[in-house]
């Protein structure tokens, strides 16, 4: 009962503390809100669309060419209406101006020689499609770039077919004249067009080109947001744990902790009560953050059992880590600095395994960070959420977390007992 009495008193104190409310719930929710605003309406839309369609100005200067017309029509057409809000524009300068003015996210400008470049077999020339984007935006332009890139890959087939035909004719000592090359390109383009307009073609596009790019892009974004939210959740959780555990030092200085020690209650029970209060605060914080981020970003944190184990493991580990760190501190003056340095330092080591996943090019270090991160409690927390989100079993990790929690709490209680028995 003493454990519950102490925990309840601490929770009452937390509920009445503006600092704790802001720190434990206000700031995480505010941060989630900032992400929500930054990634604009990720949870809205129909048919599972995850992001608002970016406004795209399509300028086709290759109006005489078949490939340019087909690409422009496709970007503006029905197939991509759920992904892009594309409109036709004849003047490249006007399209760029619309982007500069923030009226559009991207301008796609197909050059005058777009079709000709595709059919210029063996020239090695390049097809320069200009994608003019608002530098402040990331997601919308990335989607457009990805879709256009995938389509261009398809059109590259024109060039390949012309080149292959040229080589085959050359082997028979027959020169490939421009009219024949244009004919081959036209036939290939017609075939592509036929594929795009037929039912099969739509599948082809969806699978190999447009929809594939969309899904990949969305998956990348979702993975990034999931990793960011997991990192944020772990960081806040450990900071909140230390902030709550600081009440031990505050009570020591206020004289209420020594006074508790003059009662018949055992010290370990009193400290367990304080740990329980920290734990409940953290579980509440985790539950709210998981729910809000799940709703706002449609993050799938894992199956319910894994999520519960993840919450328990993360809460227990951050609470006991907080007690452990606090047991080394003399007073609240030390606490601010030490908490900041230790939790940040250990925290970054721990979440490095998630960090490398969201920074392009760093994922090659994942095998190292997966090991190194486990020297910190935050690393274990990051691992369990990675496993849970990936649908992998979390039993081993949660067992490790609970064992580590017991060790850290045991050391903390031992040190506190020694401190107050001198």
């Amino acid at each position: 009962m003493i454990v519950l009495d102490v925990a309840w008193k601490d929770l009452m104190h937390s509920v009445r503390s503006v600092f704790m409310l802001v720190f434990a719930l206000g700031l995480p929710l505010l941060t989630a809100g900032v992400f929500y605003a930054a990634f604009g309406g990720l949870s809205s839309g129909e048919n599972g669309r995850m992001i608002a369609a970016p406004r795209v100005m399509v300028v086709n200067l290759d109006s005489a060419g078949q490939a340019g017309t087909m690409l422009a029509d496709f970007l503006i057409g029905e197939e991509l209406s759920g992904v892009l809000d594309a409109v036709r524009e004849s003047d490249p300068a006007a399209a760029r101006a619309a982007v500069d003015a923030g009226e559009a996210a991207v301008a796609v400008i197909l050059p005058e020689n777009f079709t000709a470049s595709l059919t210029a077999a063996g020239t090695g020339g390049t097809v320069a499609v200009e994608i003019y984007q608002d530098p402040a935006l990331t997601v919308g332009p990335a989607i457009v770039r990805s879709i256009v890139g995938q389509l261009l890959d398809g059109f590259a087939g024109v060039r390949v077919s012309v080149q292959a035909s040229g080589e085959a004719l050359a082997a028979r000592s027959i020169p490939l004249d421009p009219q024949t090359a244009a004919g081959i390109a036209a036939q290939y383009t017609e075939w592509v067009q036929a594929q795009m307009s037929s039912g099969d073609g739509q599948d082809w596009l969806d699978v190999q080109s447009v929809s594939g790019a969309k899904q990949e892009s969305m998956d990348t974004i979702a993975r990034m947001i999931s990793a960011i939210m997991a990192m944020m959740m772990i960081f806040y959780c450990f900071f909140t744990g230390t902030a709550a555990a600081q009440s031990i030092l505050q009570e020591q200085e206020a004289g209420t902790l020594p006074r508790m020690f003059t009662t018949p209650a055992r010290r370990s029970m009193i400290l367990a009560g304080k740990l329980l209060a920290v734990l409940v605060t953290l579980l509440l914080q985790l539950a709210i953050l998981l729910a809000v981020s799940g709703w706002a970003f449609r993050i799938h944190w894992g199956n319910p059992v894994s999520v519960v184990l993840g919450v328990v493991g993360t809460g227990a580990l951050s609470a006991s880590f907080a007690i452990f760190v606090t047991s080394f501190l003399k007073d609240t003056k030390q606490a601010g600095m030490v908490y900041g340095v230790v939790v940040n330092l250990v925290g970054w080591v721990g979440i490095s395994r998630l960090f490398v996943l969201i920074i392009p090019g760093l994922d090659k270090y994942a095998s190292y960070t997966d090991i190194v991160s486990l020297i910190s409690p935050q690393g274990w927390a990051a691992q369990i959420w990675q496993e849970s989100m990936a649908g992998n079993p979390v039993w081993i990790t949660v067992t490790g977390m609970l064992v580590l929690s017991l060790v850290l709490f045991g050391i903390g209680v031992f040190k506190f007992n020694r401190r107050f028995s001198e």
Partner: protein
Amino acid sequence: MEQAIQVQDLHKAFGAIRAVDGVGFSVARSEIFSLLGPNGAGKTTIISMLCGLLRPDSGEAFLLGNSILRQAAQARAVLGVVPQDIALYMDLSARENLSFWGKMYNLRGKALSRRIDEVLDIIGLADRQKERVGSFSGGMKRRVNIGVALLHKPPIIIMDEPTVGIDPQSRRHILDAVKELRGQGMTVLYTTHYMEEAEELSDRVAVMDKGKIIACGTNAELVQLVGQDTRIELAVNVESARVLDAWRAAEGVRGVTADDGHLTVLAGDSNAVLPRLFESAASRGARITSLEIREPNLEAVFLHLTGRALRD
């Protein structure tokens, strides 16, 4: 008489400083026993050891027969402790504070609620019970601080300078409450550096200095130590050094101390000594600007035993 508190040769050092150096005393049931001494004398260290907050380097103490070393939990259960500093939760109301601390002494339910009502009456804060303690005056906080120690009706109450820094009205309330506790059969161990409080409250007083008890007994017994000297407190309009040596040499004067322009003269017969002091001052161009005569008290005892005033 059965002893409620027995302290045997307690020692506690912090580094090179001997905070408590071989202290021993005993307190009978229903007795108010005061530890009187200046700041740093070792009073709070003794109390911290009795409460289990500090472990003695050596020595032993018993609370109602329970060893503070071997039966610590039982010893703490018979104690109510009023710490020197206010140890309450400022963001909780008076009633919420009492409720929490009552639970720490294993009081629950209706019994706790009834006892809280009784304690609120004792400390005179029944009508303010729902207000946050943080909004209380210093005196009111002190009263709640005492109330916490009374919740479980402990047979022994330890009060560590409970009247420091409070208004006269609250101080009077606390002193009356302490007497009332003795009337209810509680044993009170009281520490103070206010001589008047020790004199008013205590059945017996232990005078402490530098970690040791230098005298112990009833008021009358302690005063006997300095004989029946009267204390004459004076101020002069010149530097005290000008008259100090002459007054020390005056017939009938047993001692003179100077403190911040104030002089204290110990004399057997004030009627005989006072004219000599006036005469001596006048002959040195000094004029006595204030004068107060005090009958022998604990302050004089401390001065006699240590050569210093209690407030030094």
